[in-house]
């Protein structure tokens, strides 16, 4: 019964989306306030019914209702409650329901908080958003109904892929989807602006918070996924250039470019058509991410729903949504007149460089991910490009940005002076060169790239805060004055500093962990010890134990430095009888400067265990850096100008005459 309520709720949500997708757009075209006013109640209704459907599905998972097909296929009564709940989105149908739930939450937020938008723009944004929702609700109802019944019902479910039964991965999809779907807001704003035929600084100011929020969520989501791969897959790597990873990385790269180019639109009224195009492309890549993972176009380790008929539907959606937007772009974008001129050496110039690099990098990842597919489609046979391709293209392409993103924020708008900027940054330059030389010297001159990497990291971190210190007048003006400036400095400046410093921390982590990883693989018996990067790891033996829905062997390892015990680590090998599969649970001790990573392998005939240890220097910095980047985004999101919203000019907009009708709630 509850499943049928859920199914019915999705149908009602689709109808609400149809209303929201048609009425406001027609209303805005005819200047009919009543029709435009329909957007708000429709958005509310859509959210309520989708939330109801999601609640129904959650109920089915929590109570293990095995008469619902996806619950039977993905859950099990013995599964811990956390994974029963995360099982809701740990499968194709449920994850699509979560996708639209987030879509309707964003729609609701624009409906409720968009009061200071000009009414026609508000109506059009919500209208476009409604049309996207129509497509995805139809996708769920026609190809992926999560409430499909199973007759006869099963007594026991088949369980969730044990690899996915992990706290890190339980929260990975929600964040990823917040990011993907968040970019739909930027898209709706871009299409609405194209319909209106106007893009101005006020528009950029409205788009920015949505893009920032989506970007932060996507950043956290990708970091969680990569962290999970690091400790769960048990081979010590953290990024594999796997198509599914690339699918989330492409919208991130494009979204990062969008964040930066919208600054130029806002401050200087330039780069308009490019920014609109980026907004369209970023969301297109988000849908493509969904498409690649869900359709079976690319098979990969963790693509869990592979079904070509869904692929055809998503391709149709892509053609309508993105093809439609790009056609509109072709017709309307030439009318968007750019404002400010600027010289190449200027804040705008640096942001353009940022965009060029990020766009190229996105194109490279796109090519590397889809080229094998394209070649196959035209009959050229199958090829595979792996990590070697990305390592030799992506890294060199991104390098200029690492140098320039420190200089950019110190340059003036319109026309900057490179000499002055470098003079302000001389301390950062000095630290970077010292770090570079020190590393180069310690590595006896044969690890030039590693030295370069750490030098660049120092440049980024120190540079970011020198710029901040400069703005605050640290050591130049009185403490009181510095404090006053600290309070008054726009939060976006703090955000920039944190995000760029986070990039530096990330670069340091990547460089050190890939350059100086120590690995040790051996056969051990209880009592044996092996040295590992200055530590001694002793094997204390292994014993069997029983988890809620698995059997495990747990190894005990003691890590010592000299005689001092640093850590006791207990890696496990788990066997899940319901799913008939095995996972390794690495045990990791982190000192923040390095990870000691232990994995228990198989036992051979003689009773000795294969054990693997890694010493990964600075590896925690990889995720710490990414989190600092997301934190920077979050700080920027609290900027006063984004909270206050629209500048005066827009409030006095003549279209104010068509004021929205009050909607009863």
């Amino acid at each position, binding site marked *: 019964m509850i499943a049928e309520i859920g199914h019915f709720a999705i149908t009602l949500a689709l109808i609400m989306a149809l209303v929201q997708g048609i009425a406001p757009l027609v209303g805005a075209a005819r200047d009919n306030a009543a029709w435009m006013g329909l957007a708000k109640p429709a958005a509310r209704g859509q959210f309520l019914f989708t939330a109801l459907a999601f609640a129904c599905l959650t109920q089915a998972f929590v109570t293990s209702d095995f008469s619902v097909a996806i619950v039977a296929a993905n859950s099990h009564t013995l599964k811990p409650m956390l994974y029963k709940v995360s099982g809701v989105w740990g499968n194709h149908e449920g994850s699509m329901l979560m996708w639209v739930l987030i879509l309707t939450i964003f729609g609701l937020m624009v409906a409720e908080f968009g009061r200071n938008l000009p009414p026609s723009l508000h109506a059009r944004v919500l209208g476009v958003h409604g049309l996207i929702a129509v497509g995805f609700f139809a996708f769920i109802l026609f190809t992926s109904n999560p409430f499909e019944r199973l007759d006869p019902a099963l007594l026991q479910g088949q369980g969730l892929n044990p690899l996915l039964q992990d706290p890190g991965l339980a929260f990975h999809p929600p964040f990823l989807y917040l990011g993907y779907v968040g970019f739909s807001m930027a898209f709706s704003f871009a299409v609405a602006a194209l319909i209106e035929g106007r893009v101005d600084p006020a528009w950029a100011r409205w788009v920015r918070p949505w893009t920032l929020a989506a970007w932060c969520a996507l950043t956290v989501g990708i970091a969680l996924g990569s962290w999970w791969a690091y400790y769960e897959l048990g081979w010590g790597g953290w990024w*594999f250039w796997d198509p599914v990873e690339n699918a989330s990385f492409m919208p991130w790269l494009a979204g990062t470019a969008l964040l930066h180019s919208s600054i130029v639109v806002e401050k200087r009224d330039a780069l308009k058509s490019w920014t609109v195009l980026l907004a369209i492309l970023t969301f297109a890549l988000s849908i493509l991410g969904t498409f690649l993972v869900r359709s079976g176009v690319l098979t990969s380790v963790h693509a869990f729903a592979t079904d070509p008929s869904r692929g055809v539907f998503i391709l149709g959606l892509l053609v309508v949504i993105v093809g439609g937007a790009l056609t509109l772009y*072709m017709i309307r974008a030439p009318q968007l007149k750019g404002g400010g001129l600027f010289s190449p050496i200027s804040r705008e110039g640096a942001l353009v460089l940022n965009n060029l690099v990020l766009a190229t990098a996105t194109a490279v990842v796109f090519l590397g991910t889809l080229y094998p597919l394209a070649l196959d489609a035209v009959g050229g046979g199958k090829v*595979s490009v792996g990590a070697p391709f990305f390592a030799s293209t992506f890294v060199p392409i991104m390098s200029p940005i690492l140098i320039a993103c420190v200089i950019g924020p110190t340059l003036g708008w319109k026309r900057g002076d490179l000499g002055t900027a470098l003079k302000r940054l001389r301390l950062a330059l000095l630290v970077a060169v010292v770090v570079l030389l020190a590393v180069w010297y310690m590595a006896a001159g044969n690890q030039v790239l590693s030295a370069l990497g750490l030098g660049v990291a120092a440049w980024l971190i120190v540079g970011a805060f020198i710029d901040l210190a400069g703005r605050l007048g640290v050591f130049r003006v009185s403490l009181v004055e510095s404090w006053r400036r600290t309070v008054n400095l726009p939060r976006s400046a703090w955000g920039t500093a944190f995000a760029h410093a986070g990039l530096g921390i990330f670069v340091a982590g990547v460089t050190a962990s890939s350059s100086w990883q120590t690995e040790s693989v051996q056969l051990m018996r209880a009592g044996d010890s092996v040295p590992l990067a200055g530590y001694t790891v002793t094997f204390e033996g292994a014993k069997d134990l029983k988890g809620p829905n698995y059997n495990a062997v747990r190894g005990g390892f003691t890590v010592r430095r000299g005689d001092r015990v640093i850590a006791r680590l207990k890696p496990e090998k788990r066997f899940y009888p319901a799913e008939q599969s095995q996972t390794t649970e690495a045990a990791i001790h982190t000192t923040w400067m390095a990870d000691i990573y232990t994995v228990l*392998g198989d036992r051979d005939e003689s009773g000795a265990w294969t054990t693997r240890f890694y010493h990964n220097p600075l590896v925690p910095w990889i995720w710490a850096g990414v989190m600092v980047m997301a934190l920077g985004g979050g700080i920027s999101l609290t900027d006063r100008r984004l909270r206050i919203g629209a500048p005066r000019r827009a409030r006095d907009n003549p279209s104010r005459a068509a004021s929205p009708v009050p909607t009863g709630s």
Partner: protein
Amino acid sequence: MRLSFILPIGIFAILAALFGIYLYQIGPGGKDIKQIPSVLIDKELPEFELPPIEGRGDGLNTSDLKGRAALVNVFASWCPPCRTEHPGLMQLAKEGFALYGINYKDKPKDAMGFLARLGDPFKRIGADANGRAAIEWGVYGYPESFIIDRTGRIRYKHIGPIMPRDLEMTIRPLLEKFSK
């Protein structure tokens, strides 16, 4: 109208068409992507001679593959699906089948680490550092496996990772059949 405004929709149209063609091919009634026949099926092995992975003493030549049924697996440490199928290969080796490896475009250190970590099911491994042998063998993607009979003819080719189902349904039965 300036080209720069038409370009996005143009590129998108081409990409959408490519996706469409691809989906049509793998769709109902379309070709099964796993079943592309190798031009080498039932032909003699290509002549090749591969050096060992640096730090090992074996290497792989055409003559190594004659005299008994065998599975030749093309793998690389950077290829995640290769890790997925590896336990299956270990299982086959344990059952006594002859497995040979072609290590495709890999760093010796990474390849050795891969084998040390996940186990080494191979009797001999050749290092195909520049991808030349992979071209000779007509390898489409990684991983890929070939089943060879005792006269040294290629009898079957499997594209992509050998999943437990493939192992039970095709790979093991074929190996048993050609071993007789």
